[in-house]
């Protein structure tokens, strides 16, 4: 039977893993918030002053595809891989050059591949 997952606890875990410096490239996370079913991460990458945004659906139960895909043992593990390293890996392998983007006047929103 699936266990429910607390979005507040997931948010705390995501914020905590982003506090660990991980890459040599300029990467500054500006905010991490829950928006509907998603976590919304605003950040600067490679060039200071340009604000990018990414939305990732957060799991509500342990049956959610994102939880099942990773089958983590802790919230920290899910946050590390389903959010943080998914973002970094895509960015380091050229996401900015290949994804669709939309600008809302402040943030350039990027689409993450499934």
């Amino acid at each position, binding site marked *: 039977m699936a266990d429910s997952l607390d979005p507040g606890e997931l948010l705390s875990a995501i914020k905590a893993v982003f506090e660990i410096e991980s890459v040599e490239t300029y990467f500054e996370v500006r905010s991490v918030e829950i928006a509907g079913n998603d976590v919304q991460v605003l950040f600067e990458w490679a060039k200071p002053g340009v604000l990018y945004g990414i939305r990732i659906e957060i799991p509500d139960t342990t049956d959610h595809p994102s939880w099942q895909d990773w089958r983590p043992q*802790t919230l920290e593990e899910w946050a590390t891989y389903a959010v943080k390293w998914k973002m970094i*890996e895509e960015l380091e*392998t*050229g996401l900015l050059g290949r994804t669709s983007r939309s600008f809302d006047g402040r943030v350039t929103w990027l689409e993450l591949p499934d």
Partner: protein
Amino acid sequence: MSMHFRAKNKLRRFAAFALTAALISGATLAVSPATAMNEADLAPAGTETFSVIGNLPVSADGTVLVQDLTKVGVTSTQVQSIQRGTLEPVDEQMAAAAAWEPFDRLTSWKDSIGLTVPIRYGTASWGYRHIVDKHNMTTNVSRTVTKYPRTRVEQSSSSHVYIAPVYLLNCSPIMCTILDQRDVRAVTNPTIQNDGHRRGIITTYCIGETYCNSWVKNSVNAN
């Protein structure tokens, strides 16, 4: 090995290198066998072109000593082949054929400090399936990057991060010139799973490109 077979191998290696060089430089001309034959005739005699993964000592003028290749797992037999100009090309790995489950362990090895690193079959997001399908990597690239990294950082209880350079070299019997270079990152999860083993390789990729050039996975010390 017959001279004919050796010459054919040499030509095949040079054609692969010429094609790689053309792709790197953005050239749009195809390398036909005839072109490769002409280029091969002009190639410096007694040199070998191949790639190698790991943190090699590189001199200020961008050269590497052939004898130093053993520091990143190139065998002394391979070094002798390089010096004789008879290095065999590395064949690409075949994908796993069996029907695997995500947490099935395919193999494991010791990293640069002796920590066991398994690779599991995984999913499209992590493990063997991910590195092969998305990044054109192999188990042996993951193994060599984690064994001979330039940096190894334990970022948290569930993530260890490695970076290793990969060099495309042209070597005379004594000295190698670097023709191209990539940095490859590997991320592992060292937490122990229900089966008593670590989670292992999450990802391995070339920094700067999604589908890594094949000369990376064909490195002589990744087989």
